[in-house]
């Protein structure tokens, strides 16, 4: 049970943190339509996070003692999980918490993540856990939209002007090191895979890599740039709660009101 709770939180944290990052663009997009696109994607991701947190909260409430998390308030709700955990208790991968940077970096981050979420949720639709199955079935339609939109932007930028190409290459150098962790199963993922609950990250990676390489080819980005990266560049730790400094700043902003005025609503 502890593994299922932590895995559900991992999935939820990924969606919440990327959703929050995307929401930072609200009102700042290069043109109105793209501003709206990113905020709509943020909304989808935060919506997915809500279902996952609701499920995790239910598991925690129904199985006292199963989780390591201790909260003042009871019962635990989706809000408790989003607003009252600290950085070490967040299990999102490092990729999603990285700063937005410019448009190229934001879009590459979204693309790399959507290209991961798509095969992941495809696999989870066959999960032995009925609730994760249902959430994946719901979310995959939204994810395919995100993937298409962000993938088209990668091609547009890579195959665009020398400036957009240069910026995309820079974004790649900033973000690629955080992709390795996506495919290293945590202890929870290993155990849940044996029970048919989590996804097999080996096949998720195959599908992810095929899509990323295809988009890189279409975007006139050198494939060698992906293939020549040394394995030592890859960072990890997010799934275990060891984060880059960025996450603390996100939580400070996102959690402040609930920490200062617990239970406040508007």
């Amino acid at each position: 049970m502890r593994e299922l709770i932590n895995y559900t939180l991992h999935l939820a944290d990924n969606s919440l943190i990327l959703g929050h990052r995307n929401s930072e663009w609200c009102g700042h997009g290069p043109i109105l339509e793209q501003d709206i696109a990113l905020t709509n994607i943020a909304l989808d991701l935060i919506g997915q996070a809500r279902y996952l947190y609701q499920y995790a909260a239910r598991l925690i409430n129904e199985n006292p003692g199963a989780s390591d998390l201790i909260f003042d308030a009871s019962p635990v709700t989706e809000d408790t999980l989003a607003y009252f955990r600290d950085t070490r208790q967040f299990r999102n991968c490092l990729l999603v918490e990285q700063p937005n940077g410019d448009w190229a970096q934001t879009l590459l981050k979204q693309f790399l993540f959507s290209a991961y979420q798509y095969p992941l949720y495809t696999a989870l639709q066959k999960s032995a856990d009925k609730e994760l199955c249902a959430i994946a079935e719901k979310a995959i339609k939204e994810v395919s939209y995100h993937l298409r939109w962000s993938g088209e932007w990668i091609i547009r930028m890579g195959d665009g002007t020398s400036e957009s190409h240069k910026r995309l290459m820079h974004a790649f150098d900033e973000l690629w090191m955080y992709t390795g962790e996506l495919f290293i199963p945590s202890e929870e993922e290993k155990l849940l895979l044996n029970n048919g609950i989590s996804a097999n990250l080996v096949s998720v990676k195959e599908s992810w890599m095929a899509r990323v390489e295809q988009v890189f080819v279409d975007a006139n980005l050198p494939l060698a740039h992906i293939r020549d990266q040394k394995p030592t560049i890859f960072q990890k730790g997010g799934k275990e709660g060891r984060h880059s400094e960025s996450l603390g700043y996100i939580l400070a902003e996102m959690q402040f009101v609930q920490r200062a005025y617990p239970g406040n609503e508007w």
Partner: protein
Amino acid sequence: MNGKIMPELKIDTKTIEGWLAEVMDPEVPVLSVMDLGIVREIRQENGNLEIIITPTYSGCPAMDVITAQIRLAVAGRGFKDVKVTQSLQPAWTTDWMSEAGKQKLKDYGIAPPLPKQTVCHPDLFQMEEAIQCPHCGSWHTKRLSEFGSTACKALYQCQDCQEPFDYFKCH
């Protein structure tokens, strides 16, 4: 009343559907929850009422308002303890939208979803769907943005009458 009209009394499901046909989507106020196809099941047991709904999009902010309005609509008819449950599976699709609902959308100036999904897979740079302008009926239209004013819509413009319009995208 203890949340029940009378323990043995069962209300005709059609009657309850009639009540729900008055609960409108706050974002698209011409569509009721029945038109949208988000009411999946109406259960009655011992005078207790449970209504099962499914969200359109995961992050749709209208769901909380819709849940509250469904409660109000049936509370007004004597069911005080109605349970509104969200179910995710099977996932909502625009195929569940009623024909009457599609016509209402069109009359309201929003192009209704196409009957068959054509762009719900992630391939890049697909052919744009041919969408009919809800204002002048022309098929000579162009997509401005895949994302519109709400998660369920995309933004189009008619190349004949030049009017921009929302398209309730297939999902």
